[in-house]
């Protein structure tokens, strides 16, 4: 079911960090895996990206890689993993994510999920807890309250600014992450983003409610639960419902001046919070 193929290497931002790119096969479908970190014996941290995914390595991953080996497998439909329409139910998605982590052959891993990736990271911890060491959830989708709904991310006016303005406090950070490289076609990037938005809708439409609240009692892992202070997609009450349902020792925090995707808005602050949490748990 799972096979690795050779990939390339390149430098991260600033030219210091080597980022390896490989392709693995999960369920017969190609998944791009980016790995960064100068210390091969550093503990592994797997990152599931937020809504829209990551076309390329971003500064947040550089900061995190200062103390971890950071492994970023693309979620289905996100940049780096084109196929997702074979996944119909939430169970299909969770099984795909479980098999992805199994394929990395690093378990148990520290699992970090943001937004859409957070919804799936929480499910993996609940369903296949032995794959996860510590859990970090950043504004995870998964629980919805019609009395405090947040934004409808699938009902946004067309145009290049709608989504960046909604998901980021600093839309320019989003645009930097989605900058079209020299030699690439802008239309390919538009299609790539539309595909990632559709992929999220496939298991989260219309409310982003996966019913995870009824499974979080199975999560006994040390968990860090974060959100951006200016998140316009999910309200604070969403994280609060996660907090009350999680069964492991749970730390909560807010990333100041960040929107729904703190990994783009505040890479340094977010990486610092996560690194400190993981280090504290090691001391404990």
């Amino acid at each position, binding site marked *: 079911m799972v096979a690795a193929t050779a990939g390339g290497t390149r430098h991260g931002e600033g030219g210091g960090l080597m980022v390896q790119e490989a392709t693995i096969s999960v369920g017969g479908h190609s998944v791009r895996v980016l790995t960064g970190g100068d210390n091969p014996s550093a503990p592994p941290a797997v990152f599931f990206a937020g809504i829209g995914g990551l076309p390329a390595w971003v500064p947040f991953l550089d900061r995190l890689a200062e103390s971890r080996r950071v492994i970023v497998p693309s979620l289905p439909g996100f940049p780096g993993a084109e196929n997702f329409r074979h996944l119909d139910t939430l169970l299909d998605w969770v099984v795909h994510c479980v098999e992805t982590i199994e394929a990395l052959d690093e378990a148990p891993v520290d699992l970090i999920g943001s937004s859409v990736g957070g919804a799936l990271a929480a499910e993996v911890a609940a369903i296949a807890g032995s794959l996860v060491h510590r859990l970090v959830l950043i504004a995870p989708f998964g629980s919805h309250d019609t009395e405090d709904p947040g934004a409808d991310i699938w009902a946004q006016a067309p145009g290049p600014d709608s989504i960046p303005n909604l998901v980021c406090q600093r839309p320019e950070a989003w645009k930097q992450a989605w900058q079209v490289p020299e030699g690439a076609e802008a239309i390919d990037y538009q299609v790539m983003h539309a*595909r990632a938005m559709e992929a999220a809708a*496939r298991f989260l439409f219309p409310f982003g409610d996966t019913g995870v609240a009824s499974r979080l009692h199975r999560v006994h892992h040390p968990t860090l639960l974060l959100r951006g202070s200016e998140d316009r997609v999910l309200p604070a009450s969403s994280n609060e419902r996660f907090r009350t349902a999680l069964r492991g020792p749970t730390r909560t925090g807010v990333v100041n001046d960040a929107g729904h995707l703190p990994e783009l808005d505040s890479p340094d602050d977010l990486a610092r919070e996560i690194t400190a949490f993981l280090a504290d748990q090691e001391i404990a």
Partner: protein
Amino acid sequence: MKNLWFHLMPYKDLPDDFREEHPSVWVDIDSGLLDAERVHQHYHEYLDELEFAGEVGFDGVCCNEHHQNGYGLMPSPNLIAATLTRRTSAPAICVMGNSLALYNPPTRVAEEFAMLDCMSGGRLIAGFPVGTPMDTIFAYGQNPSKLRDRYYEAHDIVMKAWQAPETFAFNGRYNQLRYVNVWPRPVQKPHPPVWIPGGGSVETWRWCAEMDYVYSYLSYFGYKAGAATMQGFWDEMDRLGKDRNPYRAGFLQFVAVGETEKEALELYREPAEYFYGRCLHVNPKWASPAGYQSEATIRAKVQSQVALAAAQSRAGNGQNGGGRPGAMGAARDWERILDLGYVIAGDPDQVAERIRQVCIDLNVGHLMLLCQFGNMSTELAKYNTRLYAERVLPQIQHLFDDRWEDAWWPQPLAERATARAVA
């Protein structure tokens, strides 16, 4: 050619400041604007108009499906069509149509359309739209990533349910039905003609060609904006080796007929500006949820917008993309509405000549006409309808007859029962 009379059934009392004070005519339209007693009047006037169109000689009458919509009071077109089976006797009844993915199970569509075909004695045209994002994704909560697959699967169920000689099991991706055996079955064999209302996607054109269905381009923006789409359709038919039989295609056009051109221009200004100003005031956030459009269509659309912008730039015209309702918005004032061809207005001879040319240029054999639009009174709607039927239709109805046969028209029973007067 065939002339069909199409009703949207708009709500006529949207306020003057609707655009300024309300976000959208669709999905989250303010329910405080609705007076159900007025809707009672609307329905009876609108049914009168449809029946009148059948009486004065239109080949067919059309209804359609919209949800949570201030310009379309027909969430259930089948209810409207059912009354038409009793109160009309000759015209085709074109339900344009049932959005297949919204019916659970889809055999409901097979059953209700079969009922309509039986009730009407074989006069049904079965329209199968995917449905707009407003109707399907937002009003009916369908998953945008699964809508088209559900649509195609529902289509397969309906077509098999109409034709399979025995009870069958359907084990699909989205529908599991152990015993499918609809009663009644349609009068028309093997099934009523199928028409597909669509946008300009090449996938839909190819599918219509493969299935031998009519492709209907239902745009509110008239023949000038529609010309490129129909050209694309016929180019694709050429590539697929299909003949250019104009009855493969349907097209929607607003018309406004007066005794004189001057009269037409005076009479129809208000309802046209009401329609294009208020009824098409749709919040753009409903227009394109991720997944509703295929990746191929996204690519085509972006490219065409680039081409459009380039063309405008060359022409020094940054106003409006040839009437195409895009980011720059559609025209709302009567002069621009006429100039862009959204509405064909004039005296009967002028309208006939323009319609003839449109049908030839776009190569369309099934013309669907909106003679009532916006807040048009029922008296004016009937006046427009009568002038078209009596003075326009005779001039154009034999267009294409010398060369082409309509293989996509209903085949009703020769002897049909009709409603009897209550004793």
